[in-house]
């Protein structure tokens, strides 16, 4: 299946790097992903019971933070047309960390599966960046940065693989864990895709609803005027009023 993945990455990369404006979006997405990874791995550095791993996670997180900044700098250097996105980026706020339901990625997966996740994600990144460099897709300055980042990613692959090997010696089903992580990533991509499709479809229906159902009421609806408005008196039973959502 490796050849299929590489073929897919190659085709997707060719498309992404050759369309004007797309490299900026791609690098912006990388910047978000790296910042999110920094947060995820920093949580692991706090939460791991293994003191020998804490420092590795910490250094890994610092790498991810640096990569996020480098990618954001490249976006700025290549120029971004959209004001709103640029404002967000200027504040450095957008992050896509793996926090869900109040649990960090590390808490959800546990140490072993988290390491498998790190290995799979970083190995994918090495492959992806390798394709960009092999095919000369990135501009020279970005390519230079990618080479440096690639070295860091190789370190991340190495330490996570070494940990997986250690787990294998302890009799843990490492191959199955890695396979499950890969399948899980595929499944999550599928979910993202279907969610996006669902959002677009429901967007169409909601837009139809807007024009069909809301339009007639426009005749009676008015925006409020400025200035002070009186406030209706509060209900005497404060507790009953507090239970109401409206």
């Amino acid at each position, binding site marked *: 299946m490796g050849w299929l993945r590489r073929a897919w990455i190659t085709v997707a990369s060719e498309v992404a790097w050759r369309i004007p404006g797309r490299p900026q979006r791609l690098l912006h997405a990388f910047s978000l992903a790296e910042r999110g990874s920094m947060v995820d791995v920093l949580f692991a550095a706090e939460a791991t019971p293994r003191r020998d791993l804490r420092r590795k996670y910490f250094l890994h997180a610092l790498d991810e933070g640096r990569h996020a900044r480098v990618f954001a700098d490249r976006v700025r250097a290549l120029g971004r047309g959209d004001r709103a996105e640029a404002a967000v980026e200027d*504040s450095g706020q957008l992050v896509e960390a793996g926090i869900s339901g*109040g649990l960090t990625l590390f808490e959800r997966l546990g140490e072993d599966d988290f390491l498998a996740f790190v290995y799979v994600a970083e190995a994918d990144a090495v492959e992806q960046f390798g394709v960009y460099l092999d095919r000369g897709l990135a501009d020279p300055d970005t390519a230079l940065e990618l080479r440096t980042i690639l070295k860091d990613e190789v370190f991340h692959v190495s330490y996570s693989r070494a940990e997986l090997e250690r787990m294998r010696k302890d009799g843990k089903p490492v191959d199955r864990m890695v396979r499950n992580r890969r399948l899980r990533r595929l499944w999550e991509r599928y979910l993202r895709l279907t969610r996006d499709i669902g959002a677009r479809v429901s967007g169409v229906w909601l837009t139809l609803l*807007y024009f069909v159902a809301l339009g007639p009421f426009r005749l009676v*609806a008015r*925006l409020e005027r400025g200035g002070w408005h009186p406030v209706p008196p*509060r209900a005497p039973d*404060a507790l009953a009023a507090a239970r109401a959502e409206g």
Partner: protein
Amino acid sequence: MATWILGVSALYHDAAVALLRDGVVVAAVQEERFSRLKHDAALPVRAARWCMAEAGIGPEDLDWLVFYEKPLRKFERILSTSVATFPRSWASFPRQMHAWLGDKLWLRGNLCSTFGVRPEKVLFCEHHLSHAASAFYGSPHDNAAVLCVDGVGEWATTSLWRGRGHTLEPVGEVRWPHSLGLYYSAITAHLGFMVNEGEFKVMGMAAYGRPRFDPQLAQLLRLEADGAFSVDLDAFRWHWHPTEAAGPRLAELVGPARFPGTPFTPELAPGDASPAQVAESQRHADIAATAQRQVEAAMLHLAHHAKAQVGGDALCLAGGVALNSVANHRLAAQGPFAHLWVHPAPGDAGGALGAAWWVWHQVLGHPRGAVLDRADLGRSTPRARSKDWLDDLGAHPVDVGDEAPERAAADLAAGRVVGWLEGRCEWGPRALGHRSILADPREAQMRDRVNAHVKYREPFRPFAPSVIAAAAGEWFDIPPAAAAPARFMLSTGPVRGDRRESLGAVTHVDGTARVHVVDPETSPAYHRLIAHFGELTGVPAVLNTSFNLKGEPVVATAVDAMATFVRSGLDVLYVDGYRVESR
């Protein structure tokens, strides 16, 4: 049996929780300090978990959980606005409905499943009432006018309340879409900054400008004869456009919008910019100065109305606009009230504590409690755990124990930039000596160094001084009414003329500073640090800025602090009495 109340604010920005035991604050903290996502809006699960663990209770022990706004009333406003702005709102309607139908409309169930409480324990407080309660119940005033000014809650964007004893009565409100907070945000976006984040930058930029766009912008924000204000809704789009706050009219009046990241080189700080670039930056500064002046005038106008309607000599302030420390100073210096009180977290996060207090005092009828005189209500880590973390990260911490304040003062006097983490996190956005980056305030070059090499932020942004309470009056001109806000760094004030040279790094270009007055009772370690710095240098003040990098929340733990320490140009780090040097 004690009564436990958990206040929750979430789903817009700055999600937070506050836990009360018999009306007393046990803990209050924003979710961003756990999730590391700045302004995190998600339901604050981790923050709640930590607060309850800190109190030694579980969800089953909670008597009430109160959410800081009424979701159905907010939904009604969104639907009504969509109808009233038909068909212009066609693009925003599906987006809003996605969020509401998918999640926000089922809030009671979500709160129950997320926090593990039964439905009958869940209460809802109005958004502006949460703000009003946060300001009034923490204040030392038994009778006060309470003014809340923000973007929008359910319908109100500005509200006035009469606070008496343990009750809050509504007096009046300005309603959506007329909003002072959103007006300032629209200007923020026009100046190329991110809304809900860049408003501080506009305030800093304003000092470089002159309010020469007053005639133009006065057409957009009008002060009304009834004591309120109105906005020219044809010029703005926040009530119908999914992403844009202002329409083309703003650009027609004041010129095109600034592109984010454009270097700011006004006449007072031109650097090596070309005359055209200087002129353009000056225009941006003048827009900021005009909008800032307008907001100050509007706040004064509202305060005079509050005085006429409610009377008394105290004004309590909350809502996001209460973070505008320049406007707060003007209210204190020129306003009609002798006392001003601002909640340390006047934005949406503070609504969590306000809502909880409202349940305790107004719904359950309990009398007023202690004044909120400190902000260190948030997350902390046991000292031994921090030590283990620092050891594991190879930081080689040195235990200086109780001497940390004096050692840090000596570091500052030697020109080192210090990361200072002590005790619990601050409640609210300001770093008040528990999660701070500190530096010598005497030379202007230090400001440039911290901006460029420590925090990696724009060179025009000023830094605040922390000064010991006993010396504050000698160094800064703080009006008596601003004494309370200055404790939480929520008011600016002129640096006294003869002291400006000694405070080069913290005196802004207009001769003012956002003063933080440090009290020995509520911040003993930090007070000792500054006092010792004063003994060493003759200046009883330090440069104080939040311990974070651009775009990140303030650090919470030793690991966060180390990550920031390593990535910034900090020289020394103190974590609860452990000293780490940069290598």
